[in-house]
């Protein structure tokens, strides 16, 4: 396409000759001889080149001077008589690409036109570049934002496994640690992890994923699902590897909880079935006893129904306790009130099993801050276990459970529960606080002592056990008088 030239010249003959010459050079030329024409044509269309005598009058001159503002692509070439040239140059300075002396030298004119064209192309190029640069800048901003807001920990690592970049979430949880080794920061290790997905990605260029447990700067442990991806240079060589880790701690906790719930229900179903059958038996004997007016049978059956309903109730409550996690609800209560509640609870069971309760609780033990629902359940559990241990023991005639409470050190209340029942072997001693461990066969859920132990720990206390098989057992439970500061939530995450 031919370039458009606006030729400003009030000398008609000169303009006509110039137009003919320019047409021959394949330019499309429009002549403007008056300032009116100049203004009209400048507003009319876009000109590649404006060529001419710019000083034909003041109006023309000022519109040319501002031409770059309207269209920076338009190149201006001025010609003037030798004596006017300085004035023109003073007036237009760099607005004009080339200044030519009249009379025009054809070679000079051609050179000026070419130069104008080249300059115009360069401006076009620069415009394109700056547009791209702006796009690039926007894209970079967007990526930076994405990098920071994605719900993952992202780090970029070099071949030495040193971190070269991290996103905001990473910085928030693991600190600003550019330059450090990933294994130090993520895992507090001193050497590379055994199976490193970053190294694998460096080796084969593929995406690798692993599940890891990492430790944040605050000491919290997170389960993370980690993916690695290669970052390549222009030549396609892997220079760095990006590691993205999604925090799946909550999912894992939930999964653990659900798994153990399922496990629990599975392992307890045998016991539940036995209890239901025994309940059936009680109801059958109650029914036939009533029909035959056999008072003995009725009263025995009633006892059995009652025992079985109590057992089933207890088991269901244990499951509910376990399934539900709630914050501990501390209240301050008298130790003697707590002790009385415990004794009221355990007395009937001890009597039924012919176990003597030997209680020694001094007055004035003061107050203790506990969650009574949980703590009473836990302590009763230890007491019931002691009575059970006696009831299972066939080798001795007289059974006794000794229950003591005292203030140990300042602000520590201790409970001691000692029995002369069957005692425990080493395995039972080691595993008794483990979830689902029971030495009572289908009679036990494996939950009681697990929950009791947890409750004591959550209250900031501890449990010590001494036992020998055949000789009985002694449980010492010590609790701080005041609620601990770093009270743990009352969920029951299960150890792997």
């Amino acid at each position: 396409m031919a370039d458009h030239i606006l030729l400003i010249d009030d000398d008609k003959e000169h303009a006509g000759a110039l137009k003919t010459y320019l047409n021959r050079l394949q330019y499309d030329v429009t002549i403007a001889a008056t300032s009116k024409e100049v203004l009209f044509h400048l507003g009319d269309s876009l000109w590649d080149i404006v060529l001419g005598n710019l000083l034909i009058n003041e109006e023309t001159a000022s519109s040319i001077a501002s031409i770059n503002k309207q269209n920076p692509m338009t190149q201006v070439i001025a010609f003037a008589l030798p004596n006017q040239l300085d004035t023109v140059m003073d007036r237009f300075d760099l607005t004009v690409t080339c200044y030519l002396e009249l009379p025009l030298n054809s070679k000079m004119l051609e050179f000026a036109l070419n130069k104008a064209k080249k300059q115009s192309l360069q401006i076009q190029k620069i415009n394109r570049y700056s547009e791209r640069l702006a796009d690039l800048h926007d894209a970079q901003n967007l990526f930076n934002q994405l990098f920071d807001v994605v719900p993952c920990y992202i780090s970029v690592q070099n071949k030495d496994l040193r971190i070269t970049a991290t996103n905001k979430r990473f910085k928030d949880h693991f600190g600003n640690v550019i330059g450090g080794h990933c294994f130090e920061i993520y895992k507090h290790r001193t050497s590379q992890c055994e199976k490193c997905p970053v190294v694998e990605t460096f080796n084969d260029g593929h995406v690798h994923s692993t599940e890891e447990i990492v430790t944040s700067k605050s000491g919290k442990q997170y389960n993370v699902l980690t993916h690695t991806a290669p970052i390549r240079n222009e030549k396609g060589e892997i220079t760095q590897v990006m590691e993205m880790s999604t925090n799946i701690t909550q999912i894992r906790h939930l999964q653990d909880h659900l798994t153990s719930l399922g496990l629990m229900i599975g392992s307890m179903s045998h016991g539940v079935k036995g209890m239901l059958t025994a309940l059936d038996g009680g109801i059958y004997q109650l029914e036939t006893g009533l029909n035959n007016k056999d008072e003995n049978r009725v009263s025995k059956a009633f006892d059995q129904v009652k025992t079985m309903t109590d057992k089933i109730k207890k088991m269901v409550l244990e499951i509910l306790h376990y399934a539900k996690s709630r914050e501990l609800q501390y209240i301050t209560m008298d130790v003697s009130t707590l002790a009385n509640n415990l004794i009221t609870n355990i007395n009937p069971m001890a009597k039924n099993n012919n176990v003597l309760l030997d209680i020694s609780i001094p007055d004035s033990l003061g107050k203790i801050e506990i969650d009574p629902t949980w703590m009473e359940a836990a302590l009763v559990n230890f007491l019931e276990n002691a009575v059970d241990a006696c009831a299972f023991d066939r080798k001795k005639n007289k059974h006794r459970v000794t229950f003591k409470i005292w203030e140990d050190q300042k602000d520590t209340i201790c409970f001691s529960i000692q029995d002369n029942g069957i005692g425990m072997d080493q395995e039972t001693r080691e595993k008794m606080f483990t979830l689902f461990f029971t030495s009572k066969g289908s009679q036990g859920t494996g939950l009681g002592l697990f929950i009791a132990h947890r409750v004591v720990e959550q209250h900031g206390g501890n449990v010590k056990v001494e036992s020998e098989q055949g000789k009985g057992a002694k449980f010492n439970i010590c609790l701080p008088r005041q609620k601990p500061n770093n009270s743990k939530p009352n969920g029951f995450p299960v150890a792997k």
Partner: protein
Amino acid sequence: MKKRILIIDDDPNIIDYLEALFTDNGYGTSSAGDAKEGLKKAKEKIPDLVTLDIEMPGEWGPRFYRHMSQDPELKNIPVIVISGLSGNSYAITKAVASIKKPFDREELLGIVKDTIG
């Protein structure tokens, strides 16, 4: 003469129940809380039928059954498995029946009657 049923279960409540149920229906009963005691009782006085819980402390039901079936005096005694374990029908294949706790007592009595009259 009354037919005799030997009840083997580790849960005394369930022994109570089965004893009452069988006695009420005209059978004689004896009972044992584990496999060892069960074998001893079976040899003392040979029963006409045995009900057997599979999961018991000491020795499991299947092992009791193996001991029993190796004893020429005992090997022909019919056994009914009464257990809380699921899928128990595979544990003792030669049992005349396998029923699951909690069981339907009419069903149990029906099986007993069909087996020993």
